[in-house]
């Protein structure tokens, strides 16, 4: 399996603070990479740099052999990278369908002519997408289909996460990144959600996923490979068992034991 995404020497500084420090990271095609580390270790910053929200202070990001280091979020998205956010960033006043279609933005016809003047063609176009979205939602939670045109703000936490994951996956990206998909949910809900994600991964496409998750159980079940970050540096990497056993990781999470 060759690496789909490679970061070399990635550094991100905010004023005096170094959030990422000369980081090397690779994600191989088709794997689920777990990204763990204590708070403030640079996981979120890494996501933001990878999706073009921040421009790195130094270093290089290669995706499928192409340099995407200084791309705008739009360009990077078009190459097939999608993401979710730590704090759910759904548009709460928009409907479920709207939110999913935002993820589908690059597939939509946006010219004035099509949208305003040729309404009949537009409606056909719309019905096509509506059915697709319904199909997707049905797989996650059938009851969401009937609530497709209700504001997302009315939904429960897990349904919101479902919508957000659908939004990230609707374009069938090659490389989705999921940020804390379980935040704000119970254990059972989390398990259910992860099963859904894994299911969508197994659904034939070979998705490469980077997963940030605080719930170690989720990491254990879902990932094939883990990277542990601390103070913007890679502490260690390997499979779940190996990483958990590493004393440096325990130290980073629990602090050094007093002699």
């Amino acid at each position, binding site marked *: 399996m060759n690496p789909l995404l490679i970061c070399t020497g990635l550094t991100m500084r905010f004023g005096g603070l170094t959030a990422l420090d000369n980081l090397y990271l690779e994600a191989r095609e088709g794997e689920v990479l777990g990204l763990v580390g204590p708070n403030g270790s640079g996981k979120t910053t890494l*996501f933001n740099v990878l999706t073009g929200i921040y421009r790195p202070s130094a270093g290089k990001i290669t995706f499928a052999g192409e340099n995407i280091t200084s791309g705008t979020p739009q360009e990077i998205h078009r190459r097939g990278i999608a993401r979710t956010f*730590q704090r759910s960033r759904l548009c709460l006043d928009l409907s479920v369908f709207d939110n999913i279609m935002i993820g589908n933005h690059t597939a939509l016809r946006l010219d004035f002519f099509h949208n305003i003047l040729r309404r009949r063609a537009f409606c056909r176009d719309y019905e096509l997408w509506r059915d697709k979205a319904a199909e997707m939602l049905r797989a996650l939670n059938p009851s969401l289909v009937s609530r497709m045109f209700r504001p997302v703000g009315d939904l429960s936490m897990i349904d919101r996460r479902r919508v957000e994951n659908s939004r990230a996956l609707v374009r069938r990206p090659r490389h989705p990144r999921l940020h804390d998909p379980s935040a704000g949910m119970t254990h059972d809900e989390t398990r259910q959600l992860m099963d859904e994600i894994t299911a969508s991964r197994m659904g034939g496409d070979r998705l490469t996923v980077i997963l940030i998750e605080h719930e170690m159980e989720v990491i254990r079940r879902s990932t094939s490979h883990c990277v542990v970050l601390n103070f913007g540096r890679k502490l260690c990497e390997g499979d779940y068992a190996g990483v958990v056993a590493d004393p440096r990781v325990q130290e980073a999470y629990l602090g050094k034991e007093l002699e």
Partner: protein
Amino acid sequence: MDLLLQYCLNGLMLGMMYALVAVGFTLFFGVLDVIVFSHGDTVMIGSFAGLATYWWLHSTYPGLPAGWAVLLVLLAAAATVALLGIIVADAMIVPLRKGPALNTLLATMMLGTVLRESIRLFFPDGSNPQTFPALLPGWSWRGGNLILRFDNLVLFCGGALIIFLVHMIINRTRLGMAIRAVAQDEEAARIMGVNFRFVVLATFALGSAVAAFAGVMNGMYYSEINFSVGLLLGAIGFSAAVIGGLGNIYGAILGGFIFAFLQTIGAVAIPFASAYKDVFAFGAVILIMAWRPTGLIAEPSSQRV
């Protein structure tokens, strides 16, 4: 040369006035992340409260020495306006924070109109310009075209003193610490035991009292006050606070002087049409915003993603 110096002096006086207004804007923004657009009209209320106090003093204690009169006028104006600020904050601004920022902005603009119209309709003869008494002795020193007036000097120093006091309150007192804490992270401050409501009300009282001073200063400087100054003064104070960088007191002061400077330059440097000076000043504000979208002294943006 003395002409140039005179322009500078005028500009400085104007700048001090704008700076005092802008400080209020920026204080409120720092604590609550809102723009209280009625602040310009608060200044106007301050000058009218000062005038009313003077009338009362003048009729009850005719022989009162001018020094006392100034002090009492200032205190009464500050107290009235601080009370107004507290009421506005408690009844309107805090409840409105839940909604979008636009609502607060619009609501305070409407509040400004309400204040303005109330003075016009309910202050005796309020629709006409009113004489503001000369409470300070009008000694002056002349050199060529330059005239340096004692009262202006006192007003300028008074303004500077007020700004210094605000600086001390913010940086050296417990209240100031609480204000800074709330400004930085409201939730954390609450958890650490800061009485949020008290801090907000105290900030509004402080900002409004500064506005009252600006109002009385405005009255004494121009010897005349009228109900309609609030809107433009508010717009200018807001501009000054924004070009300085919202939430930053020193930025607001800088912004105030910059705006006064722009107006003066506009009037002096475009000799054929000094009436264009406001066009020039506001045009410059737009350009500054295009160049520095978050103000000259910008806070690092800390948006969480």
